[in-house]
């Protein structure tokens, strides 16, 4: 386990630290803070971290701990209030093509078939080629929906809709994947199965993944590192390293070692959990 690296409110330290960020980090933050418009709500305070290429990071914590805010900052959907944030060595100031995002709801367009939904990101960039269509069909095969590629979202179950959304995320070609409670609205069984598939798929494409959840066991099961976050103000209280080998099977979650990590995270979050 690393000690939390926080530089809250120390702008000059943060400045120096910004250049000191690990050279090979895909996402690097120093003293990253976000205060919302009226200046009273500190959504995120002094977040500092480096995320290594291809690693899987879970962000876990209760609502209001800033995990969604952090994700939206990295996605370039909102602007930071202070601190430094770089993706692939370049400051984030707008949405970018090397970062892709997936939401709790599938946000599919119901007038498009599954494959047309998957093709949306490419369509926004340029006109489609045969190759794009083949690639989209291949991604749908990867998420197990090849037979449903001409179905409309309303003809698919909730879990299938999220699989389409995942295929769409991969179609963007982004190598930093931001997942905001992607399976949070699904039932326990579907969620567990999709989690296992998600691990397989992101390993296959070699993406760096940030996964937001409020489920501690899920966060640990999936990740190489767990950012444990606490609210008021939202901050990264601790970064917990997850020592387990990959590939992991769901039975890992019943082992004593696993439960030790759960206990550790719980401890950091405090007695509410």
């Amino acid at each position, binding site marked *: 386990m690393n000690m939390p690296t926080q530089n809250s409110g120390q702008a000059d330290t943060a400045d120096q630290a910004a250049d000191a960020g690990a050279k090979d980090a895909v996402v690097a933050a120093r003293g990253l803070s976000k205060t919302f418009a009226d200046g009273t709500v500190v959504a995120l305070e002094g977040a500092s971290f480096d995320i290594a290429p291809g690693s899987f990071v879970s962000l876990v914590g209760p609502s209001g701990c800033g995990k969604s805010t952090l994700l939206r900052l990295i996605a370039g959907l909102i602007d930071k209030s202070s601190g430094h944030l770089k993706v692939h060595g370049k400051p984030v100031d707008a949405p970018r093509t090397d970062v892709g995002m997936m*939401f709790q709801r599938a946000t599919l367009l119901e007038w498009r078939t599954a494959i047309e939904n998957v093709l949306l990101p490419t369509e926004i960039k340029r006109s489609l080629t045969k190759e794009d269509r083949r690639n989209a069909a291949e991604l749908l095969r990867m998420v197990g929906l090849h037979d449903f590629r001409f179905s409309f979202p309303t003809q698919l179950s909730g879990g299938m809709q999220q699989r389409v959304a995942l295929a769409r995320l991969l179609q963007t070609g982004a190598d930093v994947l931001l997942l905001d409670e992607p399976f949070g609205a699904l039932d326990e069984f579907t969620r567990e199965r999709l989690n296992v598939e998600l691990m397989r798929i992101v390993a296959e494409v070699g993406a760096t993944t940030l996964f937001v959840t409020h489920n501690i066991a899920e966060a640990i099961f999936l990740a190489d590192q767990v950012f444990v976050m606490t609210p008021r103000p939202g901050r990264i209280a601790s970064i917990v390293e997850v020592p387990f080998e990959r590939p992991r099977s769901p039975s890992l979650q019943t082992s004593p070692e696993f439960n030790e990590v759960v206990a550790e995270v719980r401890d950091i979050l405090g007695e509410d959990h």
Partner: protein
Amino acid sequence: MPAADADRGDRRSGLGLQQRRALNHAAIFLTIVGLWELGSRMGWLDPLFYPRPSNILRSFWLIYIENGNIWPEIYSTASLVLSGFVAGSVLGVSLGALVGLNGMVRRFVKPYVIVLEATPRIAVAPLLIAALGFGASSKIAIIMLVCFFPPFINTLSGVVNVDEQRLELFRSLGASKLQLMRKLVLPDALPVIMAGERLAMTSALSGALVAEFIQRDQGLGALIMTYTRNLNMASSFACIFTLTILGFLIFRFMEWLDRRIAFWNSEEGLQRVGARRRKRMEGLA
């Protein structure tokens, strides 16, 4: 056991549920018409205001076939409804989209919309005639006026109420304003816009009638006025039933159009369009 009896009876007659229902409806309808005819003949109903069904039927024969004088009026009313509807709703949708997409304009326009919405549009009809004179232009203006608001309001609210997460998705994909419009906002608003169009189409027919009542030169509205003034109630009823049929056809047409345009709201539409898209994409791949 009456239920069992009924059951046995049905099986013997060999009729399906559909046919039995149709029979029931026909029986009820004929009873009502029969009572009306009887009441009129027995003098329970004033035959001047409640003409016998048999007389109405004869009027149908007269105005549709023997004289055939209703056809130009149907054509006149229908073309009026169509042109006023198209003009009014195109204007409504485009202004609704324009206002909805521009926050500043929206804030400025909103109070006027509320005031105008509370005003019965038809009340303005005489003023429009005074301003534009008798003739087609003022009639179309009246229909445009009643057809404008439902699509305008619905388009406005449709383009304003776009799901926040979908907007974020499009922003994270780096979509331009135009792409956001074409690929998200407009298709998303289509079902609501179509609901407005259906409402507008229904009002269009009423608008046309009011315009024709006032101007009394041509159309079904004018024909009803003429027949009623001549106390030819049977023919008036024939015109009213003609309007019933016209209204029903318009309603079905709008329903059909809705299913075509916002196809994803019905299972039938999904199947139909899904099959077409599959064919198209398999041709491309």
